[in-house]
């Protein structure tokens, strides 16, 4: 159905992105081949933030409409968001070791990305420990809203903190020294990731809906 089309598009998108990153984009002067991780790293980061934004909007929609469909979207987006945030962190580490010789540094960007990951996980854990669905949905929605508002404030705080105590910056400026070809490769990768996110979200939602139906029938059977 519609999701299958998106799935195919996403596959094509990823293949195009792989081509763009490994063939089309020029090799970076100082860092060499390893720099190519940058495209995936940044795209994953952006998708992580976007997924959180979806959680935020869905949470508000749920509190206003009281429709569990919105809660489902929020929860599934959070799970996929953790996925992208994890890819983000992993690629950051993979990049840091060969280039800088260190696994991790508390620079502004990485710290904020780690925090995003932690907020996602806290959101998911909160849901795991509440039994009743409407209550869980309401509480997760509230936390989702608070957590999302927290992100820009964190961004400012961590940025300032790091300008006062500078530490090795892994990525260099995001726009520093980016060739036009690199820009194109980046945009292609981001578009591919967006398609991937959409496909994963649709798929996860379908699985979740099926799971809820199974649980419904289970409890119907048990209450006979």
């Amino acid at each position, binding site marked *: 159905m519609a999701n299958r089309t998106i799935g195919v598009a996403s596959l094509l998108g990823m293949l195009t992105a792989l081509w763009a990153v490994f063939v089309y984009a020029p090799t970076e002067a100082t860092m060499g081949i390893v720099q190519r991780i940058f495209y995936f790293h940044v795209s994953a980061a952006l998708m992580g933030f976007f997924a959180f934004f979806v959680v935020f909007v869905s949470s508000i929609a749920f509190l206003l409409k009281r429709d569990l469909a919105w809660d489902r979207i929020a929860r599934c987006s959070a799970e996929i968001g953790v996925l992208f945030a994890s890819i983000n962190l992993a690629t950051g580490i993979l990049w840091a070791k060969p280039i800088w010789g260190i696994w991790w540094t508390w620079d502004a960007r990485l710290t904020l990305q780690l925090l995003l990951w932690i907020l996602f996980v806290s959101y998911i854990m909160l849901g795991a420990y509440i039994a009743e*669905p409407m209550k869980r949905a309401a509480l997760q929605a509230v936390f989702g809203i608070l957590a999302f508002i927290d992100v820009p404030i964190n961004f400012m705080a961590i940025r300032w903190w790091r300008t006062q105590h500078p530490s090795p910056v892994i990525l260099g400026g995001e726009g520093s020294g980016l060739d036009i070809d690199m820009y194109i490769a980046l945009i292609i990768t981001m578009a591919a990731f967006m398609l991937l996110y959409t496909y994963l979200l649709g798929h996860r939602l379908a699985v979740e809906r099926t799971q809820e139906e199974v649980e419904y029938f289970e*409890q*119907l059977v048990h209450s006979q």
Partner: protein
Amino acid sequence: MELSRDSEPAVGPAAYAMEAEGITKSYGHLRALRGVSFQVPKGEFVTLFGKNGAGKTTFLKIAATLARPSGGRLRIHGVDIQDEPERIRRQIGFLSHSTSVYRDLTPLENLRFFSRLYGVGHTDEHINALIERIGLGRRKNDPVRAFSRGLHQRVGLARVMLHDPALLLLDEPYTGLDASAVEILNRMLDEVVAGGRTVILTTHDLELGLRASTKIHIIDRGKIVYSAARSDPGVREAYARHIRVGATK
């Protein structure tokens, strides 16, 4: 023992104290209420019978604005509870099994706090007199923690009556009470009704439920299955059918 004043409570011109239309409530997959509809005219004493898990508590909580219905409408004194919840809370008193009084505080401190919170601003003299009337004069400076269930409940009842609500919602108030406590509760309820107030009470005890009520409803599996005036001859049989033996459908 007088808790209520003699004059009619000031409420709107509506004839009904409560009107429920198609109230549903779901907790996840569990449908606690499946469309409850009934009206309670002002001044009535309504008993809502039901087995455990039938939906009595859920319904009362919705009427008390503690829970939000999944569907349907409910009006109290003509006002929809979703429209003006604060105004409605001024007119209702709700008492459940947990008495909602602070165990570390004395009856006096508890009532003083709730009186301020509810915006009625009773003086200490008024509260002391109230405490005397519910028979707790000698214990008024003891923390509630040490009280028996019956005394506990009296403090809870006093809390409920503080703001002189026109509609009382009592959820299984007789649970855990000994004979004398039941006596006191019944006396209080009689006065309340004599003062023109409305009472909706839930219980699964037939005799206590029938004692002073004017109308009864039976709720089973989230729906009203039987309604009648208290004097209707079919009441006991309906009770036996729905509550004792239990409907198997």
